[in-house]
C-alpha cells in the first residue's frame, strides 16, 4: 500500500499583530516581539533587529507569558491589617494609598528629609528614582549595586573609566582567546552566550576560571577550578610572569596609561600623589626630549623608564613602582600555586598562551584614526585576548583590588579598546572625573545638594556630617567603605533598626526582596522589620513597598503599592542611566503597555510622580505650582536633564530629526514603538576603537550629548584617589579616619592592585568554601512564580565535590547539616565532580517562604529548596575588639557573599526530616494560590 499521510496546513496564521518592546525577565533588556492574538499575549520571541539580543531570547524571556499571567500578581493597593510579617492586608483605593504615603512622607520632608530611606532593588529607572529622591531631599537613596557587583563596576571606573557588562564587551568578532573569571551567567547573559557561540564557531579558545564548572565554564576549553577568593593572586601571578618575560605592550602603556606618569617621592602630604603641572595636568618625561612635560602635549612620547630628580629626591614613574611590586618573587607561580589551588605549570601555561595570542597573533585593521595628542595612526593594532568577569570575583572582601588587578592585566597587555580585546559601550568610556561626586546635604523642604551617588576622589568627598558621623543611613562613602559608589542597600535595614547612625521614620523600597533572598542574615532581617520598641511601636515606624508580585517582602510592609508587569508599563532604558549600548553604537529603549493591566495596579514610576505631585516636590512642579508631568510616559518624553538632553536620545527635536541633543518631541514614544522599541546611533568607523583617546570618538560623543566636552584621559594603573585616603590614614589632611580604621585604610587603599586574604577571624573549624550562583533560566526570585521556569529549577540541592561526599559518607539525596559561624541549615546534597575539591555551592533564591509567590505551601521551593543566606551575616564574627566589622569589601562596601566558609556533616535521613531547615511559619498569601492545571492557549 502506498504511503499516505494527513494534509497539514503548514502556514497557519501566527498572530494578529506583533508588538515590540523590551524584556524585563532579567537585567539584560533584550528586545522582544510580543505576538498578540485577540488582544492577548500569545507568544514571545526575540527581536532580530535589536542591538542587545539580535533575535535570540533566553528561557526567562520566552517564559514571559507565564509571568504576565502569574497568579502571584498583586491586584490592588493594600494596607496591613495583621501584625507585620503575617501577610494580612486589606485592599484600598489608590487615592487612599497615595494619601497614606504622603501622610507619612510629607512631615518628614518638612522636618528631616533623611528620615526617609528610599532604596530601589532591581530598578531599571535609577536616573528617575534618584531624581525623585533628590527632589524629596533625602540623602538615603541607592539601588541594589552594593550587594551585587559594585566592586567590578567601581574598580573599572577608577582604573579605566568603565568595567564589564553595561560598560563594555569583548570584541567578539576578533578575539581569539576569551578568559572568564568567576560566575557571570547572570549579567549580560544573552550577549555573552552569543559571543561565546561566535568565538567557538571560529575555534577560538575559552578559558574559564571558576571553582564550579557549570554554564560557560562547562564549554570552556580549559577550566581552572580556582580556590574562591584567590583570583587576584592568580591574576597578579600572571602579571608577574608576563612582566618578567616582557610580554606587555610598552607602546600602549606609554601612550594611553599613567604608567609613565611620575609619582611624587618627596616625604610629606603629597607623597605618592601623581606629579602635576600648575594646570593639574599629569607630568611625564618626554622620551624624545628627556624633559618634564604634561602628558597630553602634541608629539610627546611619555617615557616609562626615565626618572626625575628634584631637590635630591628621585621621582619615579608608575611603571617603576609596578616593576618593584610585581616582579617580586612573592607573585611567582610557585609561590601562589597552593593558595590558588592551581599548579604553577598551569599558571605559566595560561600566561604563555595569553602572551602568544596577544603578541604572536596580533593583527592590524586598516583604519585610520587620530589620537588626543593629534597624532594620526594609519592602522588599529589588534591584540585578540579578552576578559570578562562579574559577580564571582566582585563579591569578596578583596574584590575591589581583584577587579583592579584584572583591569590592570588587560591594560598591561594592551587589550583594552583595541581590536580583539575589550571594548567600551557608550556612554563609556567615562573617566572618574567625569562622574559626579556623592552628595548628602539634607535640608528640610529642600532638594538634596546634588546626586546621591558618585565617585569620591579623596576624603573631601566622603558623605560625612560635620561631626564626622555618616550622613547616610547605609554609611556609604564613609571610612568603613570610602568608594561605595552604589550605596549599601544590604545595610539599610540593620542600620535603621539599630538607629545607627540615626533613626529613620519611613523605609520605602521597590523590587527588593529584603526579607528573603536579597538579605544576608535573612531571619535577623525579618526580626528587625517586626521588632517593636518599649512603647510597642515598630522600631522602623513605616514601611512602604512596591512590587508587582506577592514576594516575601510584601508581608513586612505596612503599605503596598502594586506595580504592573513589564508588558503593562512604560519604561525607559536611558543613556542617562544604564543603557543598552553596544560597542558600535549608542542605544536606548523603551517599554510600553503592549497590554493593559486587568488589575488595579500602576507602574511604580507613575506612582512616584503622583506622590511627588501631591507633595509638590520642586523638580516635579512648575513655577505656577502645577505638576510638570502626569505620568511616567509624560516624564520620559518631556523631562530635560539639561537643555536638549532628556531620558531618550532618539528622534529628538520637534520633527524628530535630531539625535542625542534636541528639543522635546511629543511624538517620540510613537517613533520608538515604530522602530521596535529602541533607538541606536552607530559609532563612526574611525571612532570604533581607542575610544578614550580617539579624537573622532570624543567629538562624536560630545555631539550626541554623552559628554559636554571631549574627555580624553589616561588609564589609571595607579589610582591616585586611593593614595589620598592612604595619606589621610598616614595623618595628612583635615579629614582623618577613626583610629580603629586607620590601619585598614592604609593597607587596603593601595593605589596599585594588591591581594590580601579576607578576614578569617571566627572561621576556625569552618574550612569549606560555600558559593551560590543563579541558574541561567531563573533570575532571583522572579522565576519561581513562573509555571514553566519553576519546573526547571523547583528545588536546589547543595552540590558537594566528590572528595567531600566520600569524606562525609554522603550520597545523592542524603541530607547534610551545613553550618557557619552565624547559623546552620539542613539541606539535601548532590555530588558534583567538576567542582573545586573544597567548595560547595547551590542555586541562589530557589528556596521560598511558605505562602509567598502564590505557590502552595507544600511546593518543593518551600520544602526542599533553601537559602544559603541564613549562613551569612552582614557583620563578621566578633573579633574580641568590642566592635563588629561589616562583612563587606573595605573599599566599596560590596557585600562579601562569596567569602562564606562552612562545615558540613551528614544529617538525619529524609524520612525523619522531610523539609530543609530552618523552616519558617507560612505567611498569608494576599493573592491565594494558582490553579491546579494550565492549558494555555489564547488562539483558537
Amino acid at each position, binding site marked *: 500500500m502506498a*504511503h499516505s*499521510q494527513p494534509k*497539514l496546513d*503548514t*502556514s497557519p496564521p*501566527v498572530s494578529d499583530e506583533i508588538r515590540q518592546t523590551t524584556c524585563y525577565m532579567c537585567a539584560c533588556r533584550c528586545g522582544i516581539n510580543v*505576538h498578540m*492574538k485577540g488582544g492577548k499575549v500569545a*507568544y514571545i520571541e526575540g527581536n532580530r533587529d535589536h542591538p542587545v539580543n539580535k*533575535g*535570540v*531570547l*533566553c*528561557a526567562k524571556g*520566552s517564559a514571559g*507569558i507565564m509571568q504576565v499571567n502569574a497568579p502571584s500578581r498583586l491586584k490592588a493597593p493594600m494596607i496591613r491589617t495583621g501584625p507585620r510579617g503575617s501577610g494580612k492586608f486589606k485592599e484600598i483605593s489608590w487615592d487612599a494609598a497615595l494619601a497614606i504615603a504622603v501622610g507619612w512622607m510629607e512631615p518628614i520632608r518638612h522636618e528631616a528629609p533623611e528620615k526617609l530611606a528610599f532604596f530601589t532593588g532591581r530598578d531599571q529607572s535609577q536616573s528617575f528614582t534618584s531624581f525623585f529622591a533628590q527632589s524629596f531631599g533625602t540623602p538615603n537613596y541607592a539601588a541594589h549595586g552594593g550587594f551585587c557587583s559594585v566592586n567590578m563596576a567601581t574598580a573599572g571606573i577608577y582604573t579605566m573609566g568603565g568595567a564589564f557588562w553595561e560598560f563594555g564587551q569583548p570584541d567578539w568578532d576578533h578575539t581569539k582567546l576569551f578568559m572568564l573569571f568567576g560566575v557571570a*551567567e547572570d549579567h549580560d547573559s544573552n550577549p555573552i*552566550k552569543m559571543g*561565546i557561540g561566535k568565538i567557538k564557531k571560529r575555534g577560538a579558545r575559552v578559558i574559564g576560571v571558576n571553582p564550579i*564548572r*557549570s*554554564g560557560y565554564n*562547562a*564549554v*570552556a*576549553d580549559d577550566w581552572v577550578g580556582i580556590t574562591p577568593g584567590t583570583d587576584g593572586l592568580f591574576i597578579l601571578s600572571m602579571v608577574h*610572569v608576563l612582566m*618578567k*618575560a616582557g*610580554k606587555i605592550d*610598552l607602546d600602549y602603556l606609554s601612550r594611553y596609561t599613567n604608567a609613565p606618569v611620575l609619582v611624587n617621592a618627596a616625604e610629606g602630604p603629597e607623597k605618592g600623589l601623581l606629579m602635576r603641572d600648575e594646570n593639574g595636568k599629569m607630568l611625564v618625561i618626554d622620551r*624624545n626630549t628627556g624633559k618634564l612635560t604634561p602628558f597630553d602635549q602634541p608629539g610627546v*612620547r611619555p617615557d*616609562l*623608564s626615565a626618572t626625575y630628580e628634584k631637590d635630591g629626591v628621585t621621582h619615579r614613574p608608575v*611603571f617603576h613602582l609596578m*616593576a618593584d611590586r610585581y*616582579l617580586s618573587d612573592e607573585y611567582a607561580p610557585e609561590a601562589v600555586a597552593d593558595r590558588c589551588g592551581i*599548579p604553577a*605549570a598551569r599558571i*605559566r*601555561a*595560561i600566561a*604563555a598562551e595569553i*602572551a602568544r595570542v596577544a603578541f604572536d597573533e596580533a593583527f592590524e585593521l586598516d583604519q585610520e584614526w587620530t589620537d588626543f595628542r593629534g597624532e594620526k595612526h594609519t592602522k588599529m593594532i589588534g591584540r585578540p585576548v579578552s576578559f570578562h568577569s562579574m559577580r564571582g570575583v566582585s563579591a569578596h572582601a578583596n574584590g575591589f583590588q581583584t577587579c583592579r588587578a584584572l583591569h590592570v592585566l588587560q591594560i598591561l597587555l594592551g587589550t583594552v579598546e583595541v581590536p580583539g580585546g575589550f571594548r567600551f559601550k557608550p556612554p563609556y568610556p567615562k573617566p572618574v572625573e567625569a562622574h559626579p561626586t556623592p552628595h548628602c546635604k539634607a535640608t528640610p523642604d529642600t532638594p538634596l545638594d546634588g546626586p546621591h551617588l558618585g565617585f569620591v576622589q579623596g576624603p573631601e568627598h566622603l558623605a560625612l556630617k560635620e561631626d564626622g558621623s555618616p550622613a547616610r543611613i547605609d554609611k556609604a562613602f564613609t571610612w568603613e567603605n570610602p568608594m561605595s559608589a552604589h550605596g549599601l542597600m544590604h545595610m539599610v535595614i540593620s542600620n535603621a533598626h539599630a538607629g545607627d547612625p540615626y533613626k529613620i521614620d519611613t523605609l520605602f523600597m521597590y523590587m527588593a526582596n529584603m526579607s528573603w533572598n536579597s538579605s544576608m542574615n535573612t531571619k535577623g532581617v525579618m526580626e528587625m522589620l517586626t521588632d517593636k520598641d518599649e512603647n510597642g511601636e515598630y522600631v522602623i515606624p513605616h514601611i512602604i513597598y512596591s512590587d508587582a508580585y506577592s514576594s516575601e517582602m510584601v508581608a513586612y510592609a505596612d503599605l503596598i503599592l502594586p506595580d504592573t508587569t513589564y508588558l503593562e508599563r512604560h519604561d525607559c532604558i536611558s543613556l542617562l542611566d544604564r543603557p543598552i549600548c553596544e560597542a558600535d553604537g549608542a542605544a536606548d529603549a523603551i517599554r510600553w503597555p503592549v497590554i493593559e493591566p486587568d488589575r488595579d495596579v500602576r507602574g511604580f514610576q507613575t506612582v512616584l510622580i503622583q506622590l511627588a505631585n501631591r507633595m509638590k516636590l520642586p523638580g516635579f512642579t512648575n513655577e505656577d505650582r502645577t505638576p510638570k508631568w502626569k505620568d511616567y510616559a509624560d516624564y520620559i518624553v518631556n523631562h530635560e536633564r539639561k537643555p536638549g538632553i532628556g531620558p531618550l536620545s532618539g528622534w529628538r527635536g520637534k520633527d524628530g530629526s535630531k539625535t542625542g541633543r534636541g528639543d522635546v518631541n511629543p511624538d517620540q514614544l510613537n517613533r520608538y514603538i515604530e522602530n521596535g522599541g529602541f533607538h541606536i546611533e552607530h559609532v563612526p568607523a574611525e571612532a570604533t576603537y581607542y575610544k578614550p583617546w580617539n579624537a573622532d570618538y570624543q567629538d562624536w560623543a560630545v555631539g550626541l550629548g554623552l559628554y559636554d566636552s571631549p574627555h580624553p584621559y589616561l588609564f589609571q594603573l595607579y589610582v591616585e584617589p586611593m593614595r589620598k585616603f592612604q595619606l589621610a590614614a598616614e595623618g595628612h589632611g583635615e579629614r582623618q579616619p577613626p583610629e580603629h580604621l586607620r590601619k585598614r585604610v592604609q593597607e587596603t587603599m593601595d593605589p596599585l592592585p594588591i591581594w590580601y586574604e579576607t578576614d578569617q577571624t571566627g572561621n576556625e573549624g569552618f574550612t569549606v568554601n560555600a558559593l551560590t550562583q543563579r541558574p541561567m*533560566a531563573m533570575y532571583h526570585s522572579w522565576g519561581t512564580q513562573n*509555571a*514553566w521556569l519553576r519546573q*526547571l529549577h*523547583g528545588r536546589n540541592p547543595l552540590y558537594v565535590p566528590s572528595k567531600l561526599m566520600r569524606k562525609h559518607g554522603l550520597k545523592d539525596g542524603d541530607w547534610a547539616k551545613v553550618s557557619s559561624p552565624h547559623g546552620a541549615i539542613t539541606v539535601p546534597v548532590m555530588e558534583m565532580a*567538576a567542582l573545586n575539591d573544597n567548595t560547595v555551592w547551590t542555586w541562589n533564591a530557589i528556596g521560598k517562604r511558605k505562602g509567598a509567590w502564590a505557590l*502552595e505551601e507544600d*511546593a518543593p521551593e518551600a*520544602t526542599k529548596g533553601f537559602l544559603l543566606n541564613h549562613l551569612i551575616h552582614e557583620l563578621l564574627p566578633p573579633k574580641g575588639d568590642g566592635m563588629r566589622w561589616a562583612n563587606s569589601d573595605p573599599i566599596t562596601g560590596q557585600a562579601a557573599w562569596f567569602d562564606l566558609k562552612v562545615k558540613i556533616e551528614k544529617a538525619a535521613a529524609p524520612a525523619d526530616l522531610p523539609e530543609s531547615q530552618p523552616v519558617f511559619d507560612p505567611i498569608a498569601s494576599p493573592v491565594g494560590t494558582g*490553579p491546579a*492545571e494550565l*492549558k*494555555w*492557549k*489564547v488562539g483558537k
Partner: protein
Amino acid sequence: MTELPASTTRKMGLVIDLDTCVGCHACVISCKGWNTENYGAPLSDQSPYGADPSGTFLNRVHSYEVQPDQGAAQLIHFPKSCLHCEDAPCVTVCPTGASYKRVEDGIVLVNESHCIGCGLCAWSCPYGARELDLAEGVMKKCTLCVDRIYNENLPEVDRVPSCVRTCPAGARHFGDLGDPDSEVSKLVAERGGMDLMPEMGTKPVNKYLPPRPKDQIEEQIDVLAPLLAPVAEEPKGFLGWLDKALDKLPGGNA
C-alpha cells in the same frame, strides 16, 4: 499511516553542538511557548503552582559529568528532543496510524485526532522524545516546528524551529541532513557528528557534534614555554631591558 515511507525526499533535522551548549534552557522554553500556542493541543502543566509541578515538554536539556582517565571532570549540557529517525520505531508500533513520518521531509508527527493515547510509541522510543499530555490524553512530540518552517506568514529568516531561532549560543542548527552539501551535513562531516544509541538501529536524522578536547593547555607548555623566557633575572636588569625595548618602539630613539 504507520508504515514508514520507503524514503523521504529530504531529511530535515537538527544538529546540536555539545561543544557550545551552555545549558541555558532557552530552547526548552521557547519550544514550550510556541508549541503551547500552536500545532495541536496546548502543552499542559499539572500542579503548576503546587507540590509536584509537571508538564509536557518536547525538548529537555540534560547534563552529564564525564570523568576522563586523566584530568578534571567535564560537564556537558545535552539538549534532547525527537531525532526524527529514519527507521522510527514509534511510527510502526502505532496501532491507529496517528503516528507517521512525512514523505516530503521526514518529520515524524502525531495526528492528534487519531491518537488514542496508548503510549506504545513512547515505549518504543529509546530517546524519551514523546510525552503523553495528561490534559489532552494524546501523545505530544517535537514537530520540528512544521508550522513554522514552511509558514508563509513568517519572514523567510524565521522559518526555522523556534528552538533554533532562540538559541543564544548558536548551538542548534537546522537543515536537510539528506543533502550532503547542506550546511548542516558539512558541519556533521567536519566535526564528527554522531548518533545517539546507534545500536538501536533507529538511524536518527538529528546529529550531535561532540565537545572538542578539553584541558589541553598544560600539554602545550613545551611550545609555549619560550614565550615566558625572562628578559632579566633581577629587577634592575628588567629596567635595562625596558630602556632598550623602548628604544625599539616605533617613534623611539633607535
